[in-house]
């Protein structure tokens, strides 16, 4: 199922998510994260998008997963954060 969300991170930037997910398994099939935020290094966004594939669309699990990707790849976000990303992704299901 295809869905989109737009979420303005408090004190931060605008996140736009395009999500293709499996309704039965409640997992991410494909995700695209766009917006006017900053990420260092920039290529990290593609890593994040790839590593989120097959993740369970559930708050706690998703937040943990995003935190671990950020740590593993030493990603610095400005204007968005793991909480904002999680929220924007889950908004696609509403």
């Amino acid at each position: 199922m295809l869905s989109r969300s737009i979420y303005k991170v408090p004190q931060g930037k605008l996140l736009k998510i395009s999500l293709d997910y499996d309704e039965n398994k409640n997992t991410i099939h494909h995700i695209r994260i766009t917006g006017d935020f900053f990420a260092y290094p920039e290529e990290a966004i593609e890593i994040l998008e790839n590593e989120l594939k097959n993740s369970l669309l559930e708050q706690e699990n998703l937040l943990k997963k995003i935190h671990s990707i950020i740590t593993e790849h030493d990603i610095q976000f400005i204007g968005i954060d793991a909480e904002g990303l999680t929220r924007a992704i889950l908004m696609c299901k509403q």
Partner: protein
Amino acid sequence: MSEQWRLLLTGRNTAFVNMAVDRAILVAHSQGKVPPSVRFYHWIPPAISIGYFQSLTDEVDVDACKKFGVDYVRRITGGGAVFHDRELTYSIVISEAHPSIPKNILQSYARICNALILGLQWLGIQGTYAPINDIVVNGRKISGNAQTRKTNTILQHGTILLDVDVDMMFSLLKVPNEKIKDKMIADVKQRVTSLKHVLGHTIGYKQVVAAMKAGFEDEFHVKLVEGTLTSDEAILAKKYEKECFSSHQWNYRR
């Protein structure tokens, strides 16, 4: 004697050349081939640049751009969509290891933006840094900035609005909700300003360049000495212009 940095006055170019030149300087400096560099430029034809993470088709009305003869290009820096028309654009390229540059990214934004604030002071204008990446005058945005860091080198570029046409801007950019478009335009008109608006009269590009040059010299305690792109940089810029910034693949990649 104070440290000397290179000043590049590259004048008016297309969006694709402008973005290619910034990237070429970034690469040349990271290879130790050129000194820290401050560049001033503008755009002809007018152009929309979008942030690295934005979707071109989400943000830009490509048909309207074609109709009005406005180019569009994806930047290598993050941040938002910008309509480059009557403005001064600057870029600074400097090593992350330079003692004047804070390691912390937000602090480095603030430091570089302060050069512009000092430049504005030369024009008699009181500007303030508004995190994350803006400079405001009387609470209204006059400058937007974006930074990338690659191979231990910083590229920050940004704009100073000489004049602004919000209606034109909104005929080129897409809005998430057409129903509230009029309200958004009214909103942006309240939140954005320009040198013309603040000063009450138009100001020439060269005068603003002179002020900003002084601002960078004051902030970083350096002398900006006018130079040119090296032949390596020029070759690299040509390559990036052709293979990257003017390519469909790059501009539509997200």
